[in-house]
């Protein structure tokens, strides 16, 4: 079952913040976040493993609530380079082993204007 991302699209001015959510109906082992620009490869942002952790990468961070099977990606002080489509990819619980078989959400289109 495909995870559900919200919102479907976000428009920001440079410097504004955004939150992208990802919800799954299945017990998850990990959540992966990728950003894809038009015609390019999806680029890895971060991975969160079950345990409710929060990770950060410059001004982009994420959290994973294992109990609720939800993850959120936080973009602070957005830059023009943040524009693109953000995908969450989920991996279901397989006894503590990751096989990289991800189920991706439909994506959230983020547009940052000057």
């Amino acid at each position: 079952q495909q995870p559900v991302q919200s919102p479907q699209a976000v428009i920001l001015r440079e410097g504004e913040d955004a939150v992208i959510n990802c919800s799954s109906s299945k017990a998850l082992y990990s959540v992966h976040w990728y950003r894809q620009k038009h015609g390019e490869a999806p680029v890895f942002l971060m991975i969160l493993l079950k345990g409710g952790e929060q990770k950060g990468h410059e001004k982009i961070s994420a959290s994973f609530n294992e109990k609720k099977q939800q993850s959120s990606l936080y973009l602070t002080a957005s830059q023009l380079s943040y524009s693109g489509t953000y995908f969450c990819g989920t991996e279901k619980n397989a006894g503590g082993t990751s096989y990289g078989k991800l189920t991706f959400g439909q994506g959230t289109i983020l547009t940052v204007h000057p």
Partner: protein
Amino acid sequence: GAGVSQTPSNKVTEKGKYVELRCDPISGHTALYWYRQSLGQGPEFLIYFQGTGAADDSGLPNDRFFAVRPEGSVSTLKIQRTERGDSAVYLCASSLRGDSAGANVLTFGAGSRLTVL
């Protein structure tokens, strides 16, 4: 190589023809994945190799699709009797090892865009 390389970047073919798409993973990565991405959608899992063997091919839509990785490095996705519904971007990804008790980060290539007329 430095990244995951896929060829061709674009392929236009006619309905019913046979197509091969090639993926060259990052050197040293033992796991290789094929995903398919339709317009406006997220990537969809097709098949995963650990070394030379297909560890999970549950995402292949039907028996027209087949993939090989004979020497544990380069992989070829083969599509027989192509249909218009096969049109999509076919993404390849690799990771250091496919079965990891921890983080398993996939690095994607730019994809091969297949158009079936």
